[in-house]
C-alpha cells in the first residue's frame, strides 16, 4: 500500500515536472515582436479615429470587406471578409458584396459567452456610425453625399438628437444574412477603395452599446489579433485572436525580381498566418530614444528611421557596416504622400497673395520658382525624398512619372524676371521688393514648431525667397494651431502634407476642388476650369482618358500656383535578421499578420534578455 502511494507521488511529481518543462518551453517559444510607433495613438474605435497610428493598430484587430494584397505593386484590391471584389453595377452607382459565412468576432463579455458571427447588418450598422453625429467621426466625409438616404438620416438625427439605426435606406440594403448592397447617389469608381480603408470595418453593435463612451478602449473585431493590454500613449499589446480563421500568403501577384517578395515567400510559404503570438508596440515620439531602442535590440523593427540618424544608418545610401554585420536590413519606401506649402488664394483672407489677377498669380509662381526643392532633398531630407513634380505621388493610380512642367522647377532668374515684370520691385533700395503700388511687401510663413526638420524647411523657404528679394517672416506655431489656421484661412503661406487614404490621384486632387473650401481645400482655391475637370474625373473609371484629365488638372495647378509642391518622402524601415516576411505596404501601416520571428536566432544574438 505504502509502495503504491510512493509510486503515485513519484508519478505525480514526474507529470508536474513534465508540465512545468512544457510550459517553460512553450513560453520560450512564444513569438513576441517588440516594435515602436513614432507618434502616440489616440484610441481604437474605427469610426471615431483617423490618425495613422491608431489605424495601424486597428488594421490588426478589425477587417474590412476588401483589403490590399500584401505583395502586389502597384497595389491591388483583394477580398478579405467578402467572397470577391464586386464589379460596379448601374454605371458605377451600385456595389453588392457577399460575406464569407463563419467569420467570428473575437470573444468579448458583450457576447455573453456566445460565439458571434459577422453578418451583413454589422456592415450596415458600422457605416451608419460614420454619420451618427454623436461619433464626431473624422471620416464622416467618406459617406457624405454618397449613399442614397444616408444624408437624410443624419439630418434627422441632428434634429431629434438620436440616430435611427433601424431605419432602412436605399443606399445600404441588407439583402440577406451575408449580402449587402450599396446604392450611390453619383457614380464613384473609387468606392471600393473606400471600403478597403482600415476604418471602414464592422463593429458589433452589442460591443459598442456595452462600452458606450469607452469604445475606444474596447476594440472587438474579426481580425487576427485582439487588444490584450493598453497603457495609452505608452504601450499597446496585441495577442492572437483565437477565433481567427487564419490564412496563407498569396503569391499570385509577387514580383519574381523583387528580393523582398522572394524572401517573404521563402519565409512564409505554406504557413498558416498569423505567426506572431504577441506584439508589443511602444509609442516613442523623441527620435533619439526611438533610434537607440532599436540599436540596443530592445525593438526588433523600426519603422521610419528618424532623418536625424540617416547618415549613421545609411552613409552614402548604403547600410552602415556595423548594421550590415548584425544582419540588419533596410526597406526603402517612397510613401504615397506629398509635402507642400499652401498659398492662401482667397483674396478676402489673404489680400497680398490671394486672387487670380495676373500680378497675384505671378507672385505665387515666382515663389514656386524661387524655392530650391533639390536643396531641400539634399540638406533637410538628407537625400531621403523625391522632389514632387505634381500633386500625385508615385504608387498612386494616376501618377505620371513623365509629368514635369517648367513652372515647378527651381529658377531664381525667372522668378526675379516675373516679379520685375509685374511691378514687384525694390523701390526704396532696402534689398527687398515692394508691392506694385509701392507699399511694404512682407509675407508670413506658418510652420509646425514641433521639430527641427520643419524649422529647417522654414529657413530654406525664407532663404529662397530672400534670394529673389522677397521678405518673408516665418512663424512657428503648434501643430494643432496650424491645422486650425489653415482650416479657417488665417494664414498666407502654410506648411502642410497629405498622405493617401486610398491609392488614387482623386484623393490628392480633391484638396484643390473649389467646393471643398472650408473642408480639405486649405488653399481655398476656386478655379471653375479645375472643378469641371475634377467632377468629370469622378464619373470615369481608371483609364487613359481619366489620366489625361488628371494631367490637365496638374497643369492648371502649375499655372495658378495655389501650392508650392514639396517632396514625396522616402522612409527607411529597419529590422533585425530574425524578423521574417517583411514588406512594407504603401497604404497599410502595419504588417504584423505577415511577419514571423526566429526566436532562437534572436536569443542567440542577444543572449537571454
Amino acid at each position, binding site marked *: 500500500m505504502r509502495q503504491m502511494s510512493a509510486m503515485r507521488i513519484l508519478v505525480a511529481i514526474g507529470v508536474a515536472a513534465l508540465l512545468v518543462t512544457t510550459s517553460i518551453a512553450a513560453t520560450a517559444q512564444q513569438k513576441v515582436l517588440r516594435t515602436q510607433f513614432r507618434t502616440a495613438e489616440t484610441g481604437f474605435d474605427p469610426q471615431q479615429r483617423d490618425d495613422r497610428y491608431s489605424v495601424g493598430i486597428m488594421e490588426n484587430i478589425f477587417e474590412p470587406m476588401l483589403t490590399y494584397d500584401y505583395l502586389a505593386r502597384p497595389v491591388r484590391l483583394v477580398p478579405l471578409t467578402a467572397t470577391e471584389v464586386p464589379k460596379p453595377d448601374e454605371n458605377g452607382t451600385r456595389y453588392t458584396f457577399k460575406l464569407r459565412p463563419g467569420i467570428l468576432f473575437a470573444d468579448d463579455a458583450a457576447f455573453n459567452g456566445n460565439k458571434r458571427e459577422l453578418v451583413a447588418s454589422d456592415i450596415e450598422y458600422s457605416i451608419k456610425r460614420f454619420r451618427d453625429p454623436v461619433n464626431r467621426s473624422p471620416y464622416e466625409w467618406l459617406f457624405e453625399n454618397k449613399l442614397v438616404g444616408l444624408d437624410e438620416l443624419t439630418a434627422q438625427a441632428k434634429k431629434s438628437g438620436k440616430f435611427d439605426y433601424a431605419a432602412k435606406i436605399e443606399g445600404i440594403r441588407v439583402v440577406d444574412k451575408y449580402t449587402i448592397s450599396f446604392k450611390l447617389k453619383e457614380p464613384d469608381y473609387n468606392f471600393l477603395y473606400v471600403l478597403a480603408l482600415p476604418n471602414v470595418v464592422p463593429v458589433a453593435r452589442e460591443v459598442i452599446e456595452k462600452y458606450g463612451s469607452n469604445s*475606444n478602449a474596447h476594440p472587438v473585431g474579426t481580425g487576427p489579433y485582439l487588444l490584450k493590454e493598453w497603457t*495609452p500613449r505608452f504601450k499597446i499589446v496585441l495577442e492572437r485572436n483565437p477565433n481567427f480563421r487564419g490564412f496563407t500568403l498569396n503569391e499570385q501577384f509577387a514580383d519574381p525580381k523583387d528580393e523582398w517578395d522572394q524572401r517573404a515567400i521563402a519565409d512564409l510559404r505554406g504557413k498558416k498566418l498569423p505567426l506572431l503570438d504577441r506584439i508589443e508596440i511602444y509609442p*516613442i515620439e523623441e527620435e533619439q530614444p526611438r533610434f537607440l531602442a532599436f540599436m540596443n535590440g530592445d525593438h526588433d523593427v523600426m519603422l521610419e528611421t528618424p532623418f536625424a540618424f540617416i547618415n549613421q544608418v545609411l552613409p552614402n545610401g548604403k547600410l552602415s557596416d556595423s548594421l550590415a554585420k548584425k544582419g540588419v536590413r533596410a526597406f526603402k519606401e517612397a510613401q504615397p504622400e506629398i509635402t507642400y506649402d499652401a498659398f492662401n488664394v482667397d483674396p478676402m483672407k489673404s489680400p497680398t497673395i490671394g486672387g487670380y489677377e495676373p500680378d497675384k498669380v505671378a507672385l505665387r509662381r515666382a515663389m514656386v520658382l524661387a524655392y530650391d526643392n533639390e536643396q531641400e532633398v539634399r540638406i533637410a531630407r538628407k537625400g531621403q525624398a523625391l522632389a514632387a513634380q505634381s500633386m500625385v505621388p508615385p504608387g498612386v493610380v494616376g501618377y505620371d512619372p513623365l509629368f514635369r512642367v517648367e513652372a515647378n522647377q527651381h529658377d531664381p532668374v525667372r522668378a526675379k524676371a516675373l516679379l520685375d515684370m509685374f511691378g514687384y520691385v525694390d523701390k526704396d533700395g532696402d534689398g527687398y521688393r515692394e508691392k506694385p503700388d509701392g507699399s511694404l511687401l512682407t509675407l508670413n510663413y506658418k510652420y509646425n514648431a514641433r521639430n527641427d526638420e520643419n524649422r529647417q524647411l522654414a529657413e530654406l523657404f525664407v532663404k529662397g525667397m530672400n534670394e529673389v528679394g522677397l521678405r518673408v517672416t516665418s512663424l512657428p506655431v503648434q501643430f494643432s*494651431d496650424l491645422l486650425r489656421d489653415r482650416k479657417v484661412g488665417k494664414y498666407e503661406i502654410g506648411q502642410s502634407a497629405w498622405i493617401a487614404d486610398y491609392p488614387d490621384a482623386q484623393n490628392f486632387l480633391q484638396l484643390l476642388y473649389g467646393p471643398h473650401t472650408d473642408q*480639405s481645400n486649405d488653399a481655398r482655391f476656386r478655379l471653375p476650369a479645375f472643378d469641371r475637370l475634377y467632377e468629370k474625373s469622378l464619373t470615369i473609371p481608371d483609364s487613359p482618358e481619366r489620366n489625361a484629365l488628371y494631367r490637365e488638372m496638374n497643369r492648371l495647378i502649375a499655372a495658378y500656383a495655389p501650392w508650392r509642391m514639396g517632396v514625396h518622402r522616402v522612409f527607411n524601415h529597419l529590422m533585425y535578421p530574425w524578423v521574417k516576411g517583411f514588406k512594407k505596404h504603401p497604404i497599410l501601416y502595419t504588417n504584423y499578420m505577415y511577419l514571423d520571428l526566429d526566436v532562437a536566432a534572436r536569443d542567440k544574438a542577444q543572449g537571454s534578455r
Partner: protein
Amino acid sequence: MAAYIIRRLWQMIPTLAGVILLIFFLFTYFGGDPALVLAGKISNPEQIENIRKQLGVDRSYAYQLWVFVQQVFTFDFGRSWSTNEEVSKIILTRVGPTLTIMIPVLVIETILAIVLAIGVAYVRGTLTDRTIMIICTVAMSISFLVYIIVFQWLFGFILGWFPVQGWSESFWKNLFTYAPLPIMLAVFVGLAPQLRLYRSFFLEEINQDYVRTARAKGVPENVIMRKHVLRNAMIPILTNIGIYIPGLFVGSFLLEVFFSIPGLGREVVTAVNRSDFPVIKAITVYLAMITMLVNLAVDVMYKFVDPRVQLK
C-alpha cells in the same frame, strides 16, 4: 495653530476663484476653437458646429464657466477631447511614474545640496570652494536637453549601464532599473543651482554675530554648524523646497519624453500638442491647489524649525 490653518484654508477660496477665472479666460480667448482641431482632415462647417455642440463650447460663457467651477469642485473634468479617456483617470494613472522619479530626485538633491553647501560654506574662499563654484557655473550653463542626449547615449547605449528607455508594471523594477538614469540626470542638473543657493544661505548665517559669540565661548565647530547655522538656514531652504514641490507632480517632461516614462509631464506635452483643453485645465487647476497647500505646509513647518516664528 488650528485657527491659523483654518484661516489660511479660507483664504484659498478667493485665490482659487482667481485661478479659475484666469484659466477660463485664457482658454476661452486664446485657446481658439477646439472643434477645428478635432474635426479631422476633411470636415465642413456643419460638422464643426456639431463638434462644438458636443463639447459644449457653443453654450454661453456663463454656462461654460459654471460647468468649469463644478468640474473643479467635483474633481471631474470629464473626458479628454482627443482620446475620450476620463481626465481623472489620466491624472491618477500618470502621477505614480512621475513621483517615482521626482521624489527620489527631491530627496537626493536636497540632501546632497545641503551637505555640500554647508561644506563649501565652511571652507569659503579656499581653492575647493572656488573650484566647486566654477564647476557649478559651468554645469548650469549647459542645457538640460544636452545632458539628457549625452547621458542617454553614453550610459544607456555605449556603456549599457542603464536601459536606454522603458517602464514596467513593477514599482521596484521601475525604481531600481528604469528610474536611476533619469534620477541621476535630474540630480546632476538640479544640484548646481541648489548648491550655490544653499551656500549663500549658510554663508549668511556663518557671518552672523551669534556664530562669532558661540565660537568665542568655545562651542565646537560641528555643534555650531549643525545646531546653529544649519537650523537657521533651514527657513530659506524650506521655502525653496516648498517652491519646488508642486513641480514634482508634473515632473520633468523632457525626462519623461526621452525615457518613455508614462508620467504627467508627458501627458501635458501631448495635451498641448493636441489642444486637449480638459486635460490641460485639470492639471493647471490641480497644480494651483497643490501650490497653495504646500505653501501652507511650509509656513506651518517654519514653526517647528524655528520656535520664534509666530503663526498669525
